[in-house]
C-alpha cells in the first residue's frame, strides 16, 4: 500500500501506471486462501490489490497492449485522412514529396530502429540484472530519441523557412522544379518547366510594360514560337502533369505552377509527424524516469515490468514512423 501511495502523483499515462513488479516464476502461489502478507512482504513492488507478482505483471501487460491498441486507432484516423486525400488528389502528394529530404528521413528511420534495438535489449538487461548495461541501453535509447528530435527540428525549420506551412500559410519560396530532388529525378522535365516558366514571365513582363520590354520582347516571342513548334517529349511532360505542375490539376493551366490545394499535404505532414514527435517526446520523458529508477538498481528478474511496457510503447512509436517515412517521403 505504501508504494501505491508514494507513486500516486506519477504521470497519468498508463504505461507508467501499473506499479508493476514481475515475478517470472510466481505462478506456484496461485490464487489461494492463504494469507497474502508473506507474498507482499517478499515483493515490495507488489500492489495491495494483486495476489501474486505474476498477476500484477499480466495485468500490466494486458493494459499496455490495450493502450497501444488505442494509440494505433488514434493514428488510424490520420492514416485514413491521408488515404482519402491521396486518392482524391494524388498529384498533390507527388508534388509535395519533392520538398521532403529523403536523406534526413532515412537517417531518422535508422536512428529510431537503433533505439528500438536498445530498448528491447534493455528489457533483457533488466531481466538478467545487468545494471550497467541496462543504464547504457536506456541512455542510448534516449540519445537516439533526442537525435530524432534534432533532425526533426532541422527539417521543420527548413520547411518554415521555405514557406512550406499548412493551410493558407502555404507559400513556397522555391518552385518545385528548381529543387535538387526534382532535377535529379527528372532533369528534362525540370529544364522544360524552367523554360516555360521563364517564357511566361517574359511574356507577362512584356504585356505589363510593352515599351520597356521591347528589346527582350522579341526573344520571348521567339521562345514561345519555338515551344509551340517542338512538341515536348514524354520525359519532359509526364512528371510535370503527375505532380500537377502543368495540366488540368494545376492552379494555372499553361504556366508551370503548383497543383490546387497543395497545402493539404503539409497539413497532413505536420499533423502526422507532429503528433508522432509528441509521442517521441513523451517517450523521452518515460525513459528518463526509468533511467532514474534503474540508477537505484531496482530492476531484476522479479521486477522488470515498467521497462517491458516502455519498450513496447517505444516499438509502437518506432513502427508508426516506419509507416510515416514511406507514406510521406517515398511517394511513387
Amino acid at each position, binding site marked *: 500500500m505504501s508504494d501505491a501511495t508514494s507513486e500516486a502523483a506519477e504521470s497519468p499515462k498508463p504505461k507508467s501506471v501499473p506499479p508493476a513488479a514481475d515475478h517470472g516464476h510466481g505462478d506456484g502461489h496461485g490464487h489461494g486462501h492463504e494469507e497474502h502478507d508473506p507474498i507482499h512482504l517478499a515483493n515490495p513492488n507488489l500492489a495491495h490489490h494483486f495476489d501474486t507478482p505474476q498477476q500484477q505483471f499480466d495485468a500490466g501487460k494486458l493494459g499496455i497492449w490495450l493502450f497501444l491498441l488505442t494509440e494505433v486507432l488514434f493514428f488510424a484516423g490520420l492514416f485514413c*485522412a491521408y488515404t482519402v486525400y491521396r486518392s482524391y488528389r494524388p498529384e498533390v502528394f507527388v508534388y509535395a514529396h519533392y520538398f521532403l529530404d529523403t536523406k534526413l528521413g532515412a537517417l531518422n528511420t535508422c536512428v529510431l530502429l537503433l533505439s528500438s534495438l536498445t530498448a528491447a535489449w534493455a528489457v533483457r538487461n533488466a531481466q538478467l540484472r545487468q545494471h550497467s548495461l541496462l543504464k547504457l541501453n536506456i541512455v542510448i535509447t534516449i540519445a537516439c530519441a533526442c537525435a530524432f528530435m534534432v533532425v526533426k527540428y532541422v527539417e521543420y525549420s527548413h520547411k518554415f523557412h521555405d514557406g512550406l506551412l499548412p493551410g493558407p500559410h502555404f507559400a513556397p519560396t522555391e518552385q518545385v522544379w528548381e529543387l535538387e530532388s526534382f532535377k535529379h529525378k527528372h532533369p528534362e522535365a525540370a529544364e522544360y518547366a524552367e523554360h516555360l516558366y521563364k517564357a511566361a514571365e517574359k511574356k507577362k513582363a512584356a504585356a505589363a510594360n510593352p515599351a520597356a520590354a521591347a528589346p527582350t520582347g522579341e526573344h520571348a516571342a521567339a521562345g514561345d514560337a519555338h515551344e509551340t513548334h517542338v512538341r515536348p517529349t514524354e520525359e519532359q511532360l509526364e512528371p510535370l502533369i503527375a505532380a500537377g505542375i502543368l495540366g488540368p490539376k494545376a492552379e494555372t493551366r499553361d504556366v508551370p505552377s503548383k497543383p490546387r490545394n497543395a497545402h493539404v499535404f503539409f497539413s497532413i505532414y505536420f499533423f502526422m509527424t507532429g503528433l508522432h514527435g509528441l509521442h517521441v517526446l513523451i517517450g523521452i520523458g518515460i525513459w528518463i524516469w526509468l533511467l532514474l529508477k534503474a540508477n537505484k538498481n531496482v530492476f531484476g528478474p522479479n521486477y522488470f515490468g515498467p521497462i517491458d511496457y516502455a519498450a513496447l510503447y517505444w516499438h509502437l512509436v518506432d513502427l508508426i514512423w516506419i509507416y510515416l517515412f514511406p507514406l510521406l517521403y517515398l511517394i511513387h
Partner: protein
Amino acid sequence: MASPSTTADLVAPRPSPGSDNYLTHEKGFLSWALTLDHKRIGVMYLISVLAAFALGGTFALILRTELLTSGKTIIEHDTYNQMFTLHGAVMVFLVIIPGIPAALGNIALPLQLGAKDVAFPRLNLASYYLWVLGAICMLTSLVMNAADTGWTFYAPYSTTTQTAVAPAAMGAFILGFSSIFTGLNFIVTIHKLRPPGMGWFRLPLFVWALYSTALIQVLATPVIGITLLMLIVERLLHIGIFDPSLGGDPVLFQHFFWFYSHPAVYIMVVPGFGVIGDIIPVFSRKRIFGYKFIAVSSLAIAFLGFLVWGHHMFVAGQSLLAGSIFSAITFLIAIPTAIKVFNWITTMYKGRIHLDTPMLYALAFLWVFTIGGLTGVFLAVMSVDVHLHDTYFVVAHFHYVMMGGAITALLGGIHYWWPKAFGRMYNEKVGRFGAVTVFVGLNVTFFPQFILGSRGMPRRYYNYLPEFEPLHQLSTLGAYILGLGFLMTAVSLVRSLLKPPDAPMNPWGARTLEWTITSPPPYYNFKTPPTVTRGPYDDYEGLVYDEKIRGYVEKGA
C-alpha cells in the same frame, strides 16, 4: 448489527461490520482528492456526473420553456442554439457516457468480482481528473461564447462559426481519454482479477455489459479523439482537412464522427442493459432466463455497433449501395437487443415480483427502451429516414433511448446500489413515487415529439408553425413533470444520507458478491478473495427475509 451472513463458500464477514468502512477509513479532503480506492472514485464520479446532469437538465428545461410558443418566449435564438448544443454535449459527454460505467461501475464492478480494487487504481483516479478537466473545458466554452454547432460539431459550420467551438471540442477530446482509461481499466480488471471459481459464465450480467462497453470505449474513442483534434487544429490553423473552402472534405468529418459516435450510443446504453439484467432477477426472486444469451448479446451489440455508422448519413450523399448495407446491418442490431428484452420478460414470468424502486425503474426501462429501440428500426429504413431525417422524430427516438434507456437505468442502478455504497436506505415511498413521476414525465415529454417529427417539425428549430403549438406545449409540460420527478428523487436520496447508516448487508436478497460484505463496504472489500461456487443469480430460495434487520440472510444461518 451482528447479522448472520453467508455460507462458508462465500467470504466470511469482517469481524466488526459497520465500524470501519471506506467512507470513514480516512478523513479529510486530501484523503478523497488523492484516493486510489475504487469506491471513493466511484462516489466522486457519481456526485460530479449528477451535478452535470443537473446543469444539462436545467438547459433542457429552459429550452422546453422557450418552445412553449413560437418566436421568442424567454431567450434569443442565438442563445437557444448555444443552449441546445451545450445540453447535448453535457448530457452525452459528461453524463451518460461516464454515468453508469465510471460512477456505478467503479463502485460495483470490483465488488462483484470479489476484488480489492480495479487493476490500475492510479489510472482510475487519472480518469476522474480528466473528466474534471474536460468539464472545465466545456464550461469555458459556456462562459466565453458557447458553441452553437449542436453536439455533433459538424464541419464546415464548426470550422467557421465565431463561437467557442475549440474549448468545447477540447473538452470532448479530454473526456474521451477519461472514457478510454476507464474502459481499459475494466477490461484488465475483468480479465485478471476474477476470484477463484468465477469463470466467464459466472460473471454478473452487469460485468458482462461493462466488458462490452469497455471494448467499445477502447476501440472507438481514439477515433473521435483524433477527429476532434483535427477539428481544433482546423479552426486554429485552417489546415483544410474538413473545410471545403480550403480543399477539405466535410463528409469525412461525418464519417469519423459517427465511426465513434454510433458505437458511443452503445457505450451509453449497454451498461444500462447490465443494470437491468442485475435488477430483474433479484426483484423477481427467480433465476435469470437465458443468461448466456443476454451476456453474449452485449458483445454482439458491441461488434455490430461498429458497422452501422453510415445510417447517420443516408442523406449526406452516401452511395445507395453503402446506404443499403448500413441499413441492413442496423436491422441486425434489433436481434441481440430483442434477445435481451425477451429474456428479461421471461425472467419475470411466474416470478414473485417485488415492486421496489429499482424494479420500477427496470420496468420503466423495458417500456421506454422498447419504444426507443423500435423507432430506431423505423429510422434504419432508408426511405423512411429520408422523410424523418433531422426531424423531432429523431429527437424523440434518441431521447427514448438515452433518457429512457441510459438515464432510467442509471437511476435504477443508483437506487439498487445506494444502500451498498452509502449504507443508508432511502425512503421507499418517495423512491417509488419518483420512479413513476419520471416514467410519466418521460412519456409526456417525448411521445408528442414522435408525432411532431412525423408531421415535419424539424429538430433544433427555434420557431415553428402554429399547428405544432399544442404538441410542443404538451412536451414542455412533460419536461416539467420530469424535472419534478428528478428533484423529488434527489431530495429523497440526499435526505437518506443525513441519518446514521441503517442498511443491511443484503437488502434486496441478491446473490452477487457485493451483497456478501457489509454496507458500506470495508476499505479493502474482501479480506481474502471469495471462492465462487454458483452463478450470480442462483439459489434465491436459500435466502430468507429477516424483519429485524430489514434484509436477507442465509436460510438456517
